[in-house]
């Protein structure tokens, strides 16, 4: 379980997260949406300790992210993260990308890491691209490898930061299919995305953020059919164009 407790973060004078509260229960999929600059990426980076925050508390399985005694490296092992621009290691093959962390962090043998990687490549439908370099893969393929790379650490949580917004329309589905499969298999997920079809299919809750605050939250039906704030109405009308 991830508990986010009234966190506040400033970049200098700029109040980027304001009293953000949220609980993500085991097995849930939570979708975060909101306009550009509303603090969605920053929130994700606070959860796995890539960015510090000044006030409030985040607990991951009861472990405080803020506590200086917390081993953040250990904590990050159980929170996978997927990025908008994939961020594969360009000098490594797909296989090497996936096996690097299990081998160096978990100290798995090469064989064990590769077995795990093959299993994941199968899961994301990329077995035939094990030896390809990122530059020779399409965006959708790169993103599926990136998902496999995160899953290789056998995380309890997965965070996605706009995983399909850099993709051509015809590739979006292949990535969403993998994410839907993961959600249905019981992964606990936190997804920043504007793909409302995905939200409809798997989201247990949708959070709408604006200017560093959560201004609306609810189920897909609540949010989509009955938005409460003008900001959310405007946002929905924009993304549904």
């Amino acid at each position, binding site marked *: 379980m991830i508990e986010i407790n009234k966190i506040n973060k400033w970049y200098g004078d700029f109040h980027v997260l304001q009293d953000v509260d949220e609980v993500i229960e085991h097995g849930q999929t939570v979708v975060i949406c909101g306009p550009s600059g509303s603090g969605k990426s920053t929130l994700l980076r606070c959860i796995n300790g*890539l960015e510090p925050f000044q006030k409030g508390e985040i607990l991951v399985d009861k472990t405080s992210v803020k506590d200086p005694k917390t081993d953040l490296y250990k904590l990050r092992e159980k929170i996978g993260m997927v990025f908008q*621009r994939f961020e594969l290691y*360009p000098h490594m093959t797909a296989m090497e990308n996936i096996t690097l962390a299990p081998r160096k962090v978990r100290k798995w043998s090469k064989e064990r890491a590769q077995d795990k990687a093959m299993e994941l490549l199968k899961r994301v439908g990329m077995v035939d691209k094990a030896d390809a370099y990122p530059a020779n893969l399409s965006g959708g393929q790169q993103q599926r490898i990136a998902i496999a790379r995160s899953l290789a650490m056998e995380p309890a949580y997965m965070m996605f930061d706009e995983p399909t917004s850099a993709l051509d329309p015809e590739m979006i589905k292949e990535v969403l299919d993998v994410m839907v499969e993961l959600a249905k298999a019981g992964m606990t997920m936190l997804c920043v995305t504007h793909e409302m079809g995905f939200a409809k299919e798997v989201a247990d809750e949708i959070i709408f953020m604006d200017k560093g605050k959560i201004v609306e939250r609810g189920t897909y039906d609540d949010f989509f059919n009955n938005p409460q704030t003008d900001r959310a109405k405007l946002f929905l009308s924009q993304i549904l164009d």
Partner: protein
Amino acid sequence: MNFAYDFDWSVLWRDPYGVMLIKGLGMTIFLGISAWIIAMAVGIAVGTLRITKYRLLRMIGTAYVEVFRNIPLLVQMFFWFYAGPMLFGETLSRQINRLDGLAIYVSIIGLGLYTASRIAEHLRAGFASISKDQYHAVLSTGMTQVQMYRYVIIPYALRLTIPPLTTEFLTVFKNTSIVMTIGVAELTFQSYQIDAETFHGLEATTGAMFIYLLLGMTVVKFMDLVERKYKIQGLMGR
């Protein structure tokens, strides 16, 4: 045309001068490669210090680069040669001064440390061109800072930096000519030596020039091969 000068190109191969030039070339190559090894090791370390999240380490890295980059190499070389041994205290410095080939060690270290400051700068530019999310992607898998630099960021940045590193590698060989001033018998030194003994410095220097030219072209060819092997496919347009 009359130059009032009797050319004698045989100083380029005549005994003992031909052998002197070849020995000079050997020394130049030895100095260049040895200095390059030091430069890469120190340059990577200093370049990485400059972007770590620890302020003190960043300041050390910056100070290093500023000092070595801004003082003329010739002055640095004299400094290491005359003052360097004294940095080790009185008794040790006396022993160091008696070392055989001290000037050669000083040359390698001086040239290596100077070139390291330049490599560090190129590498820093390489690090800066890697997106913040790329760093985050590595850390998000549970890797430590050290693992992140070692397995992903440094190998990636080095590949991005191959073109300027080619120039630096070439420059190391050219800069070796400076160490004749502290008496190391590299190629330029030997051509001067031939002049001193035969008064045919013009031929000797011309010969040395062509040897440097061939050496430089070989280095560039070699770096082309390195680039072809390590270039990240399709990345350059990113």
